[in-house]
């Protein structure tokens, strides 16, 4: 068994002259849930997107599920099949039905046959309580439903790690909990999760570790309890005061 699902060492990332990640060091143990928070523009999305290679890095080491994706681009393909991602804006395929959104990636990326893929898709949609919408198109669903479909679509590939980039930020307040609930289920099933979110209730309930970023750096990392009740850094204290309100 691997200890760390994700291991980040001295990772640097630039957008032109902007130093977006400044020598990040981070380990995510297998089966744990890490919540990443921090002010806007601090590099949270950039960090999480390096973990499945949506962003390339300038220097440093990056291992996901034991595969080096910093130096060997060929590993990227394998990693993406085992690492699911859910975006703020859902990014469902608008021209495909909900069912097809879940079936097609299985066929194309792991070569499952259509019948098996359909069974799997319906299974996951059912777990996300959106199976009755299988024949609809994404436009016909609410934000909360869309996000649960996006999650089902990712889970169809049986990922070992799930990445979430502000999965509830684009949702109306009354739909946030329906998405957080299914994520909580997932965390309990010992999925390795990295989630960028400002939902501190969620962090409190399921996170093994909470990490605060500011200006491309990790300011502080600790258990939810430490981070909320006994933060060491002034920046953390300030940030927690803001999000607790």
């Amino acid at each position, binding site marked *: 068994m691997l200890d760390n699902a994700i291991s980040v060492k001295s990772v640097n990332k630039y957008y032109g002259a902007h130093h977006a990640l400044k020598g990040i060091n981070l380990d995510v143990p297998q089966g744990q849930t890490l919540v990443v928070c921090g002010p806007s523009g601090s590099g949270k999305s950039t960090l999480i997107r390096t973990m*499945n*290679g*949506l962003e390339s890095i300038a220097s440093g080491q990056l291992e996901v599920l034991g595969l080096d994706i910093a130096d060997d681009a060929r590993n990227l*393909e394998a990693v*993406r*099949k085992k*690492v*699911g*991602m859910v*975006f703020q*804006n859902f*990014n*469902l*395929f*608008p*021209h495909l039905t909900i069912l097809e959104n879940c079936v*097609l*990636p299985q066929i*194309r*990326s*792991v070569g499952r046959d259509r019948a098996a893929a359909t069974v799997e898709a319906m299974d996951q949609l059912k777990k996300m309580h959106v199976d009755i919408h299988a024949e609809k*198109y994404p*436009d016909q669903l609410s934000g909360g439903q869309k996000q649960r479909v996006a999650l089902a*679509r*990712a889970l169809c*590939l049986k990922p070992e790690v799930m990445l979430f980039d502000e999965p509830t930020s684009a949702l109306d307040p009354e739909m946030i909990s329906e998405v957080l609930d299914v994520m909580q289920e997932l965390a309990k099933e010992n999925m390795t999760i990295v989630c960028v979110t400002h939902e501190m209730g969620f962090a409190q309930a399921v996170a093994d570790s909470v990490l605060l970023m500011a200006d491309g750096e990790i300011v502080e990392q600790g258990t939810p309890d430490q981070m909320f009740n006994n933060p060491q850094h002034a920046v953390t204290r300030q940030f927690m005061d803001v999000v607790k309100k």
Partner: protein
Amino acid sequence: MSTSVVPPLPKQGFGNWLKKHFFSTWLNSVFTVIFGAVLIWMCIKLSNWAILDAIWSVDNKEHCGHGAGACWAVIQDRGRLIMFGLYPYEEQWRSTLACLIVILTIGLSCLPSFWSIKKLPALWVIGFGTFVLLMRGGFAGLPLVTSEQWGGLSLTIFIFSAVFVLGMPLAVVFALARRSSLPVIAKGTGLFIDLVRSLPLLTILFAAAVVVPLLVPDWLEGNKLGRVVVAFAVFFAVYQAEIIRAGLQSTSQGQEEAAAALGMPYWSLVVDILLPQAFRNTLPSTINQAVITFKETSIVTIIGFFEVMASGNAAIGGGEWTEQFVEVYVFLALVYFVFVFGLSRYGAWLENRMRVGHA
């Protein structure tokens, strides 16, 4: 229990509707009366000319012209020339059949259920293969009819659909190449597209018909119709490529990221995700391009092909029917109208279907 409260619609009879849309002010009333009168007068005139006073049969040919209406006898007499050009008389059933097969092929390709990477090419290979075999003959007792003798409406339809079928995949390739991450390919394609777009269609077709045979070895020459169709297809493709590129640009970055994050390969991203959305987003421009191309097929006359327009001219050129040019042109206009109108209605249907069912 839910009770829905629907506000009562105001009662609106035909009289009210008329008043609201045509007689709301005195100025509107004046316009309505004037245009109404002109319209009715034109309808009466037209139906008198085209139907009531028209002469339909060649047997009554001597009455044509002398104050009578349209002389449709010319179509009865010369219709076959217009439809088939110089295609041998006894073999014209082949041309008819081939034409119907191509129309069927086009019709089937229009159905969304045929839109898959396997079905469409198969359909086209079978459809066009049968067309060419039937038209050309030279086997199983069918006399050989070379493409120089093809003509009329079947030639027009063949050129149009062949240009479309060859040009569309080419357009996709151009559009993707222009977005390529390799600068050499992207820039090169851009240059090529701009170059072809800066030349008139006539120049390109002329070069393909006349200049190419002088430059390339015999075995590469192919036949004239083939060269012209390929050149025409390239011309179509550079315009269509820009339309597709606009469609690709209008799909969100998130789509590519989602597909990548799901581990889908690049070809699948393009074929399953980007292209369907690009075509959806640019359907009106694509239909527009198809209509323009259909009408532009008449340009092949100039390099010696006898498509439907040229055949029409030949029909009135013989001396016997010189005075009936109006009837022949009206007939040609109707032929074009049927196709172009069909295309636009199909476009509208597809757009509507995509809005409702998202195809």
